[in-house]
């Protein structure tokens, strides 16, 4: 390696060193500590520093713990799919049908609920979905139902609260992708005889997949790690994995089991990232 090349290499390392150090200090080291702690045990009220897999064995052998993982995955997949289905048309309407000078206003209105606190928004939903809440009163008033629907404290309530939040997030990522799409691609497809549906299916949708997948991955990560919405809207009718982690921390002070469950959660997120990796690359060919 020549001297200029070595100098260039040193400059490159110097440039990335702060980011590497940051990642090392605030991700790699804490993660390693958490992984090590997940191999310890809580015995009685003491944490014993033995090294074994008993926390993971407990997780796999206790149906109520394993069930929390399945609940998390089911709810997260459901929320992600519904949010994409709702957000895409909204983003498309804003990008394609709203005049350019009004698009910023439309986006601001679409994300207006972001301005309120996440917790307050969840509690607000409890008032909407309650037995005597706004929704049931409206449906009964309109003569559509005779008895109030039991929506609150159900999985449906949790999914509703999540979808309300994540539709806004996905609208932003999909809109950002849609407005970058050169109109010439769609014109060319139309010139070649494709109808509007074929243009959408063969041109627009594939080219906006990165925006969808980025938003969907963010939705997946944020949703599967959240315990506030299931706690407030789900009414503890079932537990998701972050709630079980909080129970280990808050009730039992069982940090080793909480660490083991967190590792399980991170494994699921990593698997989701691997599944979406081809769309999540920063640089594209």
């Amino acid at each position: 390696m020549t001297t200029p090349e070595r100098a260039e290499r040193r400059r490159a390392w110097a440039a990335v060193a702060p980011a590497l150090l940051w990642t090392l200090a605030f991700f790699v080291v804490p993660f390693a500590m958490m992984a090590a702690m997940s191999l310890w045990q809580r015995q009685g009220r003491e944490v014993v520093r033995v090294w074994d897999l008993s926390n993971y064995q407990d997780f796999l052998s206790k149906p109520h713990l394993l069930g929390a993982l399945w609940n998390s995955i089911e709810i997260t997949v459901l929320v992600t799919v519904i949010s994409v289905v709702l957000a895409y048309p909204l983003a498309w309407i804003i990008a394609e049908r709203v005049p350019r000078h009004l698009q910023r206003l439309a986006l601001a209105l679409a994300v207006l609920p972001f301005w309120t606190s996440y917790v307050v928004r969840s509690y607000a939903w409890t008032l909407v979905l309650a037995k005597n809440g706004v929704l049931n009163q409206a449906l009964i008033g309109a003569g559509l139902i005779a008895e109030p629907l039991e929506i609150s404290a159900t999985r449906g309530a949790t999914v509703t609260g999540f979808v309300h939040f994540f539709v806004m997030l996905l609208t932003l990522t999909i809109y950002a992708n849609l407005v970058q799409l050169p109109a010439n691609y769609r014109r060319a497809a139309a010139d070649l005889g494709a109808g509007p549906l074929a243009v959408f299916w063969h041109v627009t949708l594939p080219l906006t997949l990165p925006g969808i997948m980025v938003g969907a991955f963010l939705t997946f990560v944020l949703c599967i790690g959240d315990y506030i919405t299931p706690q407030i809207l789900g009414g503890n009718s079932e537990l998701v994995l972050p709630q079980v982690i909080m129970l280990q921390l808050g009730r039992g002070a069982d940090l080793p089991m909480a660490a083991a469950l967190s590792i399980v959660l991170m494994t699921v997120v990593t698997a989701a990232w691997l599944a979406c990796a081809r769309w999540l690359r920063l640089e594209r060919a």
Partner: protein
Amino acid sequence: MRTILLATVAAVAASAAQAEELNALVWCDHTDPALIEPFEKAHGVKVNLKEYEGTGTALSIVEQSRPGDWDVFVIDGIDVPRAIDAGLLAPLPVAELPMADIFPEVVLEGFQSRDGNTYAVTEKFGYNTISYNKEKISAEELSEMQALWSSDEFAGRIAIYDYYLPVMGMVAMGLGKQTADIGEGDLPAIRDALFGLKKNARSVVDVVSSQTALATGEVDILVGGGEWVTAILAADQPELDWMIPDQGAVRWSQSIGVFADSERKDLAVEFVKYILSPEGQARLATSSCYWAMPANAKAGEVLTDQQKAALRWDDQPDYLKRAQLYPAPDGDLDAAMQDAWTEMLQH
């Protein structure tokens, strides 16, 4: 010039005096400004309050703090021995505290004292029992506790307070067991009863949600509720009430102590004295987060008749006789009880 210098020094000194702070790890009732501000004004200090739910959380917070970070500790009465074992609490100057005025039934000397030293004092108590909407259901219908988990009549009308110790204690009492005698062998029967309770329940709720669930008519019955849920709502919603079933109720209590590592012990003791004074006790009993009985009987001289009626002041001798203390499990039983509770949540 000298005058300006002296004035500056005085201002800095005054500012330093104003800046003295007390850090307290507390339950949510202590965060009411109406309770804290009189102490802050009287002593010219700032009280920083960290609210928590569940002793496990508090101990985690303390473990992650530096020695001396915390001055005052409000803790579940039955968990005081854990804090003493961990060396967290300092002996209190009991001669300066109104020990003679504390209701004798809630003194908990066996929990709070060791080797002649008293490490915490009961400051507030109440009951985990049944809160209900008396326009929807009568107290007579709720008098038999087992019906809550065995009768379909209550399906969809119940919320369960999300704290395993009092509710499992209640269920044990409903099954004819003593809370003090609960062992691992009792857990299968308690777990089955909990599953029945969950089947009838709309939700399992925290402190705030339990009040909301009753107040909005989402449910008619709160298992694990009591005066701490309904007393604060009584003025606006007199139909919300609480009762004790035939099998009795679980009595909870919270204690206050001073951290052994506190660097402001004198001020911390002053805070304990204020909280235990009749005025402090009346404010604590009627705190905006939840109401409950003050431990100091002399608070009755400060509370209004309306407040005492909401707290059922005159019925306390009868209630105290019918209530049993929270279960106080050792570490292994505690873990098994939490596991059973988590199973119930997931059921």
